[in-house]
């Protein structure tokens, strides 16, 4: 299974590598895309981490009504479809958005969300919560006794307890965010573009879809892959901390800080994260019942794609996580280096002479989504299955529980929680994915995120809003059902 996963990643990569040789010399535009990709990813990572530190500290030292809801809110962006978040951000920060509406009476010039600043804003929206969660789990890992001891000895708590943890976690968080932003496609597609704000991922898409320049697409894909591999090599395994929820009931005792600062940080972050969601819900609610049939068909297609990708990814991840070992580790991490569009380009190159691209759209989307989700699923399932084996493996050996029986009677029931959580994450991610589908699909194969982005592009904002709300409901609903299914113990 690990070999199959390797082949599925490496096959398209090899195809891309072979075609890259036919490309001409990189144009200045290609270099600009290369530079912008690195620059925006670095800026997004730095900003997200810098803002996450005060936010995590404020959340750790304050207890307030709604704190639990806030902690759930910062878990939401991970499964929030990118295109929906962008719609919400445009509603707040866009030309006709709430911010500009507030600025105009003051005589201030309007803000624009399009261009580099918009790309970075959207990336911070997605990754500030991620960085914050990684730091919160870092704070949770400091034993409560240490806080009390430091206090009793009058040691500066920041320097002795917080700083060592931050120094250990921040580089990993920054590298992970850098890696995520390197392969950003939907954000660049909607908020970026042009000579100033084109990422390599977007350049691949444009080369393939509009310039029909396979060589150039392949060359950009190779460059993209090389950059990701380099970042991945730096990040190692530390950065891929599982996306588990932070502990809630811990007794951390951070040094006190001014209330206005913490309240301000929490308030601003809360508005920044909640307002776009609120905008989607508010504007979508009136439109969701008037959606054209094309949207409903797209939704149905998305559900099928998400379920198929979940099944495929879970099958691969479960078998690989059970086996473990070096090969499985590598095969499970490798998809991080081959972004959705890189793999998509590879699949296109392999098959474009054989099959019409439109016929490929949905199968390729299923496959690519499954591959992209594999690293996350593996990281969640591997420790869970290893723990079950460590606890009950010998008992099962003794009772002769082998093969499928071992799965059915031991592994699945005992790792049910993580299995449900992983399946929920994959389903929600696949539901909201706007990547490789954009490469292949015509009107007839479009998924809900693609239909929504096309509606936005055509300024059919009501339709986009309704589709956005539907998409959020479907993505969160899928996550909820799977995650819930994992929690219900056999009655």
């Amino acid at each position, binding site marked *: 299974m690990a070999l199959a996963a390797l082949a599925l990643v490496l096959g398209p990569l090899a195809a891309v590598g072979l075609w890259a040789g036919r490309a001409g010399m990189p144009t200045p535009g290609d270099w600009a895309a290369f530079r912008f990709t690195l620059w925006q990813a670095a800026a997004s990572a730095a900003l997200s981490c810098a803002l996450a530190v005060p936010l995590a500290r404020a959340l750790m030292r304050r207890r307030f009504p709604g704190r639990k809801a806030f902690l759930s809110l910062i878990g939401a962006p991970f499964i929030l479809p990118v295109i929906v978040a962008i719609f919400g951000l445009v509603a707040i920060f866009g030309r006709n958005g709430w911010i500009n509406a507030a600025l105009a009476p003051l005589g201030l010039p309007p803000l624009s969300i399009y261009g580099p600043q918009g790309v970075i804003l959207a990336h911070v929206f997605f990754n500030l919560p991620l960085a914050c969660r990684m730091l919160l789990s870092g704070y949770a890992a400091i034993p409560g006794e240490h806080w009390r001891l430091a206090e009793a000895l009058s040691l500066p708590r920041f320097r002795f307890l917080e700083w060592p943890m931050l120094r250990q976690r921040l580089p990993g968080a920054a590298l992970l965010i850098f890696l995520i932003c390197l392969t950003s496609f939907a954000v660049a597609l909607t908020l970026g573009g042009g000579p100033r704000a084109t990422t390599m991922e977007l350049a691949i898409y444009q080369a393939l879809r509009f310039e029909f320049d396979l060589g150039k697409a392949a060359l950009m894909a190779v460059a993209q892959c090389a950059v990701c591999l380099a970042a991945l090599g730096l990040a190692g395994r530390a950065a891929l901390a599982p996306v588990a929820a932070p502990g809630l009931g811990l007794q951390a005792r951070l040094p006190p800080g001014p209330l206005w600062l913490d309240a301000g940080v929490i308030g601003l972050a809360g508005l920044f994260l909640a307002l776009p969601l609120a905008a989607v819900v508010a504007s979508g609610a009136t439109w969701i019942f008037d959606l054209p049939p094309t949207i409903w068909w797209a939704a149905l297609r998305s559900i099928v794609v998400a379920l198929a990708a979940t099944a495929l990814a879970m099958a691969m991840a479960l078998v690989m996580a059970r086996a473990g070992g070096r090969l499985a580790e590598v095969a499970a991490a490798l998809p991080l280096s081959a972004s959705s569009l890189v793999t998509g380009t590879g699949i296109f190159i392999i098959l474009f002479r054989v099959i019409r691209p439109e016929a490929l759209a949905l199968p390729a989307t299923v496959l690519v989504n499954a591959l992209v989700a594999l690293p996350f699923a593996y990281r969640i399932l591997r420790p869970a299955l290893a723990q079950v084996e460590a606890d009950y493996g*010998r*008992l099962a*050996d*003794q*009772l*002769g529980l082998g093969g499928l*029986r071992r799965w059915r009677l*031991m592994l699945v029931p*005992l790792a049910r929680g993580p299995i449900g959580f992983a399946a929920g994450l994959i389903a929600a991610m696949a539901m909201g994915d706007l990547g490789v589908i954009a490469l292949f699909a015509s009107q007839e194969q479009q998924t809900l995120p693609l239909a929504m982005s096309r509606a936005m592009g055509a300024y059919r904002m009501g339709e986009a809003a309704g589709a956005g709300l539907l998409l959020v409901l479907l993505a969160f609903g899928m996550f909820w059902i799977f995650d819930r299914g994992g929690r219900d113990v056999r009655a």
Partner: protein
Amino acid sequence: MSGPDGLTLEGVTLVQGSFRLGADLAVPAGQTHAVMGASGGGKSTLLGGIAGFLAPAAGRILWQGRDITALPPTERPVSMLFQEHNLFPHLTLAENVGLALGPSLKHAGSAEVADALARTGLADLGKRRPAEVSGGQRSRAALARVLLSDKPLILMDEPFAALGPGLKQEMLALVDETLHAAGRTLLMVTHDPADARAIAAQIIVVEDGRALPPAATGLLLDNPPPGLAGYLGS
């Protein structure tokens, strides 16, 4: 060196990381032996080797004269009780006990399972899950499973260590009157000389990387060799 009767370890060497344990001993069938020695001395390694969780680097393991060294755990004439995790938490006690009859849940409702539960004082608790009964009752359910299996050699790696002294004695008595009375051969790891005196005729001392041949319990505990004396604190 030893007859074909019971368990024989012939020049067995077990290796776990940098730790090595040598064992050359025989345990007659139908007897109860205690295994004693300092923590980390290799008691669990010894049992793991006999149960088949750890392949010996050298030597042979025989049961009734038959070489079982290469058999997987489930095909050995061995049933082992661990310190914990002896019951699957998502299965009822009856389902757990029924696994002794085969890797399937279909045995849970059988008369044999009901009988094994009754003999361990769990007659009405078959439908409960481990988390819904007391620690002592969980130990009883684990015993019931071992009792129901037809394995003649029982290895116990301190399965009652987490129980209070009263419950532990109760369990030892139950072991004695069920497993021992049924003619099973028992190897029981323990830290407590009183456990050994209660049900073990012989003691296998594990120290300095060696599992020593069994010695009579009373004699050994009354005049312990230096290593064991230091461990016992006597």
